[in-house]
């Protein structure tokens, strides 16, 4: 699947309006306080690499052919979010990254410095 530029370079997050807890995927009740008042907000998509790998043997159902770089990013808001890396290489834990594109629904993260260059 080709890499598409984001119309708006941001990410959806879900915030509990009761206790402000954040989640990076949709929740029905807040995991912290069980409130059902959940609102969708936008993150600018800045964070640091929490872990990364290269998937060399993908699932038969994968939308991207391997190998591809996969990461989990800790956003500045504090939550983790899975995403892709621009090339099939790992990035050290703690590397500052930002969202630069999207493959389907999956955010692609790259170095903050190269992304702003």
């Amino acid at each position, binding site marked *: 699947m080709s890499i598409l530029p984001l119309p708006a370079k941001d990410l959806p997050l879900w915030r509990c309006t009761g206790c402000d807890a954040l989640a990076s995927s949709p929740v029905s009740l807040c995991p912290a306080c069980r409130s059902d008042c959940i609102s969708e907000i936008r993150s600018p998509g800045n964070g640091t690499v929490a872990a990364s790998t290269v998937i060399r*043997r*993908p699932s038969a159902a994968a939308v991207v052919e391997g190998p591809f770089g996969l990461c989990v990013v800790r956003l500045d808001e504090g939550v*983790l979010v899975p995403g892709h890396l621009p090339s099939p290489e790992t990035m050290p834990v703690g590397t500052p990254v930002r969202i630069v594109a999207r493959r389907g629904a999956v955010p692609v993260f790259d170095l903050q410095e190269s992304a702003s260059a």
Partner: protein
Amino acid sequence: MTGLSIVGIGSTTFARHEGRTAVSLAAEAGIQALRESGLDAEHIGALYLGNFISGFLTGQEVLAGLTADRMSLGAIPATKVEGACASGGIAFRHACMAVASGQCEAAIAIGVEKMSHAGTATVTQGLNCALDHEADAASGLTYPGLFALVWQAHAARYGTTREEVSAVVKKNRRNGLANPLASMGANLSDSDIEGAPVIADPLTLYDCCPISDGAAAVIVTRDDLARQSSATAIRVRASAQTSGRPGLAAHPDLCGFAATSAAAHRAFADARLAPADIDLIELHDCFSIAEIVDIEDLGFMPKGHGGAWAREGRTAVGGDLPVNPSGGLEAKGHPVGATGIGQIYEVVCQLRGDHANQVEGARLGLTHNLGGTGVACTVNILERTS
């Protein structure tokens, strides 16, 4: 749960069983367990079958009813349970609850999986049924990928090294050489492991458990009926099951699984025992790094110390705390639904004193079975009382 014993065990080899069906494997293990127990089939009041993806991979469902029929168990309730790779452990706990509740005086738990006929990409797709598809599957995450991420996070926080993880691989593959049920025993060197094809950086082929077929079965009874059995009874001191957050991003630091910590806490509390009481462990080493993470999560040492224990040989047979003397998932293979029961089979052999890799004087053993992205976990504590 008190007053429960395991009186019969059975297992196929964990290997490629070409031309066999899941039902024939399950029935083979079940009949072996029933015969070993010496109990009449009329005593068996319930069957619980753990299975994960045989429906997806073979097109055959109703495996519990088919297996009960193949074993001629009559009209007893036969129930399939599913919790990804923890399906077998969950089946065992349900058999324990059926007996403890008084619904029946004996129950059989069987775990089974048939996988090896399918290609790796299709098996990977099947195993991915255990991912949270709303949160994670679109990213192309796989289970080797998940444990590769766990390894990188664990290494960044605690300094865990390739050498320490390889120590787990070498120990488990070596343990498998003597186990007649294990198909992947081997003497491996560090260079064998590091030179193997990379599956998901830094995991190589030898860091991953092999795709396998197989079945295992155990019979649970009340203690009074256990005395009628011809087999040496092993007491169930605790059988705990927990759930964890399924999404990758819901794990606070990727260095452990909360479901494991919670299940261990519950099992030790129920048994009124502590980690120091345990003589051996069979745990869920689906990937080499998982053994280090699991043994820490189970509470046997502080987080970050598991790698050193492996490197120093403290988890070998004859070490302070033998882990996976069977060879574990890495040397036995991982027929997913069978694994949790296979672990109980191995610990029962140890507590009876007749295991190929016997831990001298073993009296208390623990099994740990983890499903999915930490979404389900079971921990059992078993005891030799004679």
